[in-house]
């Protein structure tokens, strides 16, 4: 990837995002009372300023994409052709799914059990060379953390609906 293509991509995205903010997001999701005395005190003022600046940066990125000398690839870039083809993308997706499941599991299973599952799932997703150690850690680490946070720090760690720990 060169700076030219990166800035082109970022520039287009940023400019469109600024438009999205000004035209849709700010009017819809920012509420201002009707009796605002002065426009600069309105809750809308700062978001609009930021949206405007975003637009400026977007245009700046676009402009810099078209200046001479930008078409040099970055030196420390990893090769575009990944040796594993689609596998990295699948792993990213899997990690995303793990995170969603963690969010689902935390209030229901409780933090300890969810964390154990998440630890094990991640370790295998990363294809660890020490599967036994990973499993042992997956059980011990969340338990130790639980003992510390719940009993030393006095934090109400979510317990879930099934198995409660002391």
């Amino acid at each position, binding site marked *: 990837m060169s*700076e030219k293509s990166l800035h082109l991509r*970022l520039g287009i995205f940023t400019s469109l995002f600024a438009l999205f*903010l000004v035209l849709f997001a700010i009017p819809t*999701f*920012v*509420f201002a*009372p009707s009796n*605002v*005395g002065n426009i*600069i*005190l309105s*809750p809308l003022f*700062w*978001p609009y300023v*930021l*949206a405007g*600046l*975003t637009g400026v*940066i977007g245009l*700046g*990125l676009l402009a*810099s994409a078209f*200046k001479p000398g*930008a078409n040099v690839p*970055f030196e420390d870039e*990893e090769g575009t052709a990944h040796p594993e083809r689609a596998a*990295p993308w699948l*792993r*990213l997706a*899997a*990690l*995303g799914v793990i*995170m969603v499941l963690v*969010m689902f599991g*935390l*209030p229901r299973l409780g*933090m300890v059990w*969810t*964390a154990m599952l*998440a*630890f094990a799932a*991640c*370790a295998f997703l*990363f*294809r*660890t*060379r*020490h599967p036994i*150690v*990973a499993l042992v*850690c997956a059980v011990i*680490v*969340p338990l130790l*953390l639980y003992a*510390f*946070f719940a009993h030393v*720090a006095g934090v*109400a*760690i*979510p317990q879930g609906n099934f198995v409660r720990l002391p």
Partner: protein
Amino acid sequence: MSLMDSLAAGLSLVGNVEAFFMLFCGLVIGVIGGAIPGLSATMAVALTLPFTFSMAPINGILLLLGVYKGGIFGGSIPAILIKTPGTPASSATILDGHPMAERGEAGRALGMALYASCTADAVSNLSLILFAGWLASFALNFGPPEFFALILFSLTIIAGVSGESLLRGALSALAGLLLATVGLDLVYGTNRFTFGDPNMMGGLNFIAVLIGLFAIPEIIAMAWNPVAHLGRTRALGKSKCTLADYLGSFKSIIRGSMIGVFLGSIPGIGAAPSAFLSYSEARRTSKNKANFGKGEIEGVAASEAGNNGVAGATLIPLLALGVPGDVITAIIIGAFMVHGLQPGPMMFILNVDIIYGLFIGLIVSSVFLLLVGSVAIRGFKFVADVPKRILMPGVLVLCIYGVYAVNNNIFDVGVMFVMGWVGYIMMRNRIPAAPFLIAFILGPLLEDNFRQSMLMSGSDPLILFRGPITWFFWLLTAITVFAITRSTLRKRVPLS
């Protein structure tokens, strides 16, 4: 009462094993608490507070101060080792500390963090003792217009941490500013980007955003390429921080301590901006400028000096005015009140023994920190040797626990995950994360102080230039912006 009498009175209060033992315990608790991401120095102090209710006042306060100081240093340990700041103040330490650890120089980085912290701590304590009254009355001159000018100047730090492209740094900063608008409006209390969710009304939790932005992208990157780290040395090795390292960074350490003292004595800024400001000043003046962000030891020194320099100075407004300088001192002030002590000018007359007892304890604390810190570095050393593919799931689990513990809210874990993906996308697109964070901290302060100024003056913008302090910061801002523009143009790769 003469100075000697006061000192003697103070000494008689703290001149027992118990007081020093409490201080020591505090430092140990603080370093451990600070080293656990999400637990942070603030939490550690809050958790220790109830134990002080039954102690003698001076012992309780020394315990809390120990936790505070230990926590601010402790935060740098995970920042360096696993790229997860243990406490917000140590996020600047990541910038150079973690690359050093990746290079197998974790020991050197940690050593420097400790020495810089102790030095800054000592400078900060001395300033408290010598200049408390003067700095406090100066701090009282800071109203919203002065804050606005100061924060505007602080935003120029962004240029210093943008890395290879100022434009992409600015993009990152704007994203941070926009994200910081989520929550209830300060002046009118209306919803901004909350989508009706009560969890978002309080704004996004700072620590969740922080950890999401720095630690989680590492884990995601691991999923992308689990073997990227192989072949690189990560072990702590024999690398140590040498005297030459320390002397080489000494100027930055002292400068960072001064910045810390200055920002710490003004209520409401806190340690994180100070660390970043110190870092960017060190980068600007260093001869190894190009190496900053890639594992420059002076960067670690500057950041740690910047955040620990705050730790003693926040006591200036607390003791001299009774005003808490940040969240942590707000908790500590609770300990004073429980014991019927009312910090403020009168305390220097009514409870002079306690004041001098505190001063003596503070001076000792810098030395204790050095001891506790060196043991802690050895204790946490093993983290660098854990195989990375087992370490990373562990970090994930630790972050889940830690971020939950900050506000006892599962929603924050979700914020952390989402910010993790944002951070990963930024990483892949070579957008630096540090400007995002600085903007996220400073953005609301800038907006709030602007609007408070406008409320004060009835919307007359001239109030933003109302006195010498504002002029000074406006001038500083103008000079910095000019310098940044000139150096970018000079590089012949304009704005990139």
